[in-house]
């Protein structure tokens, strides 16, 4: 009994967090499927966008946070633009990604997780994107060492790739990254994460507190 109550509490808290983050109310969706019909990436998704909304409506938040769909969303904003109920679905996807990371839910697509991490670490270091290092680190991390290798020299010959990073925005970006890190340290711990262990997925975290 206690388990069911706790599970429900966790779901409600997470759903609230998603709704607050996105500024959307999931009950507004009436499942017309228009988002899925227009989604350019739907064919690659494990759960179509309208079904992610359905999962959230049913309170199956952990299923929604674990699906590939939230990470495959390209933020093209087609669904948001076309929704007859004016649900900002792209904002819901963004919220799901943010909350999934906060709760320590593993990202099901390794390449995308690596892409995001590497990109931000380069911005943190140089202030602006340095393509050469970025692609080198990304290819190394995905063990796909020679991907797009032939394009490098051509781009360089055309003057579209530089050997050195541009450091003009370093001060600007570093101060922002520093400030954001400080805010995160002062945030109250995530709900129902009593162990303080963010690396454990929400479901396991709850089960180990039993």
């Amino acid at each position, binding site marked *: 009994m206690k388990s069911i109550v706790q599970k429900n509490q966790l779901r409600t808290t997470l759903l609230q967090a998603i709704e607050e983050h996105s500024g959307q109310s999931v009950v507004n969706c009436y499942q017309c499927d228009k988002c899925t019909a227009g989604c*350019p990436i739907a064919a690659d998704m494990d759960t179509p966008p309208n079904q992610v909304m359905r999962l959230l409506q049913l309170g199956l938040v952990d299923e929604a946070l674990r699906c590939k769909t939230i990470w*495959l969303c390209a933020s093209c904003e087609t669904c948001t633009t076309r929704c007859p109920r004016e649900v*900002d679905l792209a904002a819901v996807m963004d919220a799901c*990604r943010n909350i999934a990371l906060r709760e320590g839910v593993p990202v099901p697509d390794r390449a995308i997780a690596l892409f995001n991490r590497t990109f931000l670490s380069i*911005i943190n270091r140089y202030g602006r*994107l340095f393509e050469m290092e970025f692609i080198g680190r990304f290819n190394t991390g995905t063990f796909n060492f020679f991907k797009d290798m032939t394009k490098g020299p051509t781009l360089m010959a055309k003057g579209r790739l530089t050997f050195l990073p541009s450091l003009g*925005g370093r001060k600007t970006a570093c101060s922002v990254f520093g400030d954001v890190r400080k*805010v995160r340290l002062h945030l109250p711990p995530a709900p129902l994460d009593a162990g303080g262990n963010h690396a454990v997925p929400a479901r396991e975290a709850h089960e180990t507190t039993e």
Partner: protein
Amino acid sequence: MKYAYFPGCSLHSTAIDYDESAKALAGALGLELMEVPGWSCCGSTPAHSTNQLLAAALPAKNLVAAKAISDEMVVCCSACFSRFKFAQKHLEEKPQLRAQVADMMPAADAQKVRVRHLIDILTNDVGPEAIAKAKKRDTGLKVACYYGCLITRPPKVTQLDDPENPRFMDDLLKAAGMETIDWPCKTDCCGATFSLTRTETVLRLSAEILQMAKEAGADCIGVACPLCHTNLDLRQSDVERKLGVKYGLPVFYFTQLLGMALGLNAGELGIGRGLVSCKQLLAAKGVV
């Protein structure tokens, strides 16, 4: 009028031709662009996918720097444009986020700057009539205007033209004496940021766009976003190899196309930096 100018990471590397042509075109039309001092990355997709505060604070910091120069900031990259617009929207709508950002910088300044895409300035401040007057050469190009996702979507945020059938790029290019084709892929997604992570998806989406442009009889494609340019130009040979077809469709930034009509020379506009060769096409039309 003087505008603060935010180039963004791409325009200093893979889209250097966009930067060159935007500056040359602005100069020819009497727009003064002043680069935001110490500008940094807007955070792009990796920031908004992972950390809302970072996704608002990075653009806000750049907007504060822009405010010192002008009340209006020009952005060329559609993705950066979208991130700035969203950051302002979130600062407006989320009091907690606004308070956190206000602790780091004068957030009110960031909200006051009017963020505008270069194509919006050319359409609404300069106007197609002025472009028609400034035209010096008939290029005779038949262009497929590809708007992509983030200039028009979501319209509540971008506040530009029709999100399903935008016409502002067509209007500008027509005023400059070009023919623009009517085609159905104007606002389709090219896969954008997945160019590295999910290349197959990008090839599938870009193939549809290239195929449709070719079938509709375009000579070339006009774009307004460095990511669209990357996927259609840099990935075009990959698409051709995968499908066993030959498109040979050069991809130009709309600034390059307008610049050519205004009689600017190819070097100033960065023409020839694309991976798909445009030599044959431009020679046939007598442009270069």
